């Protein structure tokens, strides 16, 4: 039913947009929790879980008791759920969405028979086509000859029917658990010394880095959580300039943060989590010589953790003729150096600054002008080079329109980049040449 129709019937209808991401997160959490019933729990579509409880039910007192336990716990958590127990994946899937219950051994065909064919996990078109033929229930399909069905609707329908009835195996295949990069350490006695915390951290890092190495990953952000005796938590968080899994190098970066921790009456537990990880392929082990990139990453990490990673910048060329936008400033931690060729064309100054008006004597270009309280005399002028503003960007600095750039060599020495705006006649300085 469309939302407009539903609103027409019931004007007070409370609606909320579906949040698929959060639903998937909840389902993933529920899947982890459902591991208490079975070691094999898989997601079944966007709204279901499938657990293989072969040989498990007796631990809970039987299938009915297991199901009752599941419902009781979910109800306590405020969740409405439907469940079914059946001998096959397809059977349990169909029954759970059409009433729920338990199908005893050997009664699959009887219990599934009255259910609509759509319960067989077939697409909507097939279900509709079957309905037009008068085959509305699964029971109508079971006695049919398989060959004509397969010829008409493809092997998918027959396959699903066979899976539901148990003629074709369909194991529960849970996806692999995503690796959890967190390790913890409980201390027998509370510690308070910085060296003790660092020693504990070294042990944690060794385990964490070994785990990271096993999964070909490197940490990008790490958080050290320290639990104090008085149940207060202290956190030390560091960011790294590059994916890293070298315990000694990471430990050195934690030193400053650990130094500032107030241990109170002592720390009794430590937990280290790599909150952000990136793939990091195993590296060739060579002679013990630090790669220059590693050293530079260490430096960026040290600087970034105090000053902020956005203050360490790298320049990269950009596609623009406007001098201010001919390069972009990137955070060095999140970019790699790209070789930048000197572009052709007229020479460019080594430094630029926001345009500063110069007091110019008449003349084009001016024979004398004052800039930054310096009286300068033009010795030689090269230009003009006309640069037009980018019309698709409204840049306040370029409101004055076209600019004619001149390279002015002065008798006093400085070589300046001056421009004249013909549409609003004035002279400004914008750069200094080498």
């Amino acid at each position, binding site marked *: 039913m469309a939302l407009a129709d539903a609103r027409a019937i019931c004007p007070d209808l409370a609606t909320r947009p579906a949040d698929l991401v959060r639903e998937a997160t909840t389902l993933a959490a529920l899947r982890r929790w459902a591991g208490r019933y079975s070691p094999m729990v898989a997601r079944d579509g966007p709204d279901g879980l499938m657990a293989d409880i072969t040989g498990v039910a007796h631990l809970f007192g039987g299938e009915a008791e297991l199901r009752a336990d599941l419902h009781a716990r979910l109800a306590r958590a405020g969740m409405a759920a439907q469940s079914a127990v059946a001998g096959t994946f397809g059977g349990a899937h169909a029954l759970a969405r059409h009433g729920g219950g338990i199908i005893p051994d050997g009664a699959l065909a009887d219990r599934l028979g009255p259910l609509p064919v759509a319960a067989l996990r077939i697409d909507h078109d097939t279900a509709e086509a079957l309905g037009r033929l008068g085959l509305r229930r699964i029971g109508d399909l079971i006695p049919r000859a398989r060959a004509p069905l397969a010829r008409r609707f493809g092997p998918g329908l027959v396959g699903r029917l066979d899976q539901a009835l148990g003629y074709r195996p369909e194991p529960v295949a849970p996806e692999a658990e995503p690796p959890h990069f967190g390790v913890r350490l409980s201390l027998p006695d509370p510690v308070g010394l910085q060296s003790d915390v660092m020693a504990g951290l070294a042990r944690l890092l060794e385990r964490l880095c070994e785990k990271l190495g096993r999964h070909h990953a490197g940490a990008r952000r790490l958080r050290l959580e320290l639990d104090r005796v008085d149940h207060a938590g202290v956190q030390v968080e560091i960011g790294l300039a590059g994916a890293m899994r070298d315990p000694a190098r990471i430990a050195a970066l934690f030193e400053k943060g650990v130094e500032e921790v107030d241990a109170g009456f002592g720390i009794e537990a430590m937990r280290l989590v790599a909150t952000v990880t990136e793939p990091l392929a195993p590296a060739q082990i060579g002679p013990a010589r*630090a790669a*220059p*990139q590693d*050293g*530079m990453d*260490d*430096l*960026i990490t*040290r*600087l970034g953790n*105090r*000053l902020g990673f956005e*203050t*360490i*910048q*790298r*320049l*990269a*060329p950009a596609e623009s003729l406007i*001098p201010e936008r*001919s*390069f972009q*400033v990137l955070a*060095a931690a999140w970019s790699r*150096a*790209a*070789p*930048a*060729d*000197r*572009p052709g064309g007229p*020479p*460019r*100054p*080594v*430094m*630029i*600054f*926001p345009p500063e008006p110069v007091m110019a004597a008449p003349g084009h270009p001016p024979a004398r002008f004052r800039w930054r309280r310096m009286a300068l005399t033009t*010795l*030689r002028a*090269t230009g003009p080079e006309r640069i037009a503003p980018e019309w698709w960007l409204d840049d306040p600095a370029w409101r004055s329109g076209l600019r004619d750039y001149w390279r002015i*060599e*002065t*008798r*006093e*020495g*400085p*070589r300046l980049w001056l421009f004249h705006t013909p549409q609003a006649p004035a002279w400004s300085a914008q*750069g*200094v*040449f*080498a």
Partner: protein
Amino acid sequence: MRCERAGSGALQLAPTRVHEAEGFGRHAFALFQSVCHDGPVVWVGPAHAPERLLLAGLPQGVGERLHIVRAGGVDLLWAVEEALRAAPVGLVVAELETALSLTAGRRLQLAAEAGGTTGLVLIRQGAGSNAAQTRWHCAPRPGAGADSTLHQWSLIKNKRGTLGDWTLHWDGTSAAFHLVAETGERRGPAPPPL
């Protein structure tokens, strides 16, 4: 002529020491030294300075090695020290707005020795520190020919060696420069006998 990377050219900064440059042409001098040094260049500048390096105007090969750090106050000096202590860095250029105290300057020298890095501090006129190994006064000079890029770089303080004065053409694209013949200090006329 090119600055010899391993040799001891006159314009070569002594390695593992911190030097100072002042004058209007100090940025050009710093860029010249960036070309002459291998490895990453860390350029530490004040957070709110309006001047920015223009990538298209930098010498060949410097742009991709350049790391710009923007910090203010004590953080700036700390960043310079950290960069000097990092072994892979080739040259650390620091733009300072205030004079460097003797303690801070000495600390930077120790950091440069520890990291094996060369440092160059760009200072305001006359705001030099006693701890500097050498101090250069850099000024652009008007040239005779068209497209001229004449620089006068004078060594006005040197803890180990003599002072000097060089006038050269350096066009800011590569490590190559052309030294203008030395004229030497012209002697003033002898005072008349009393």
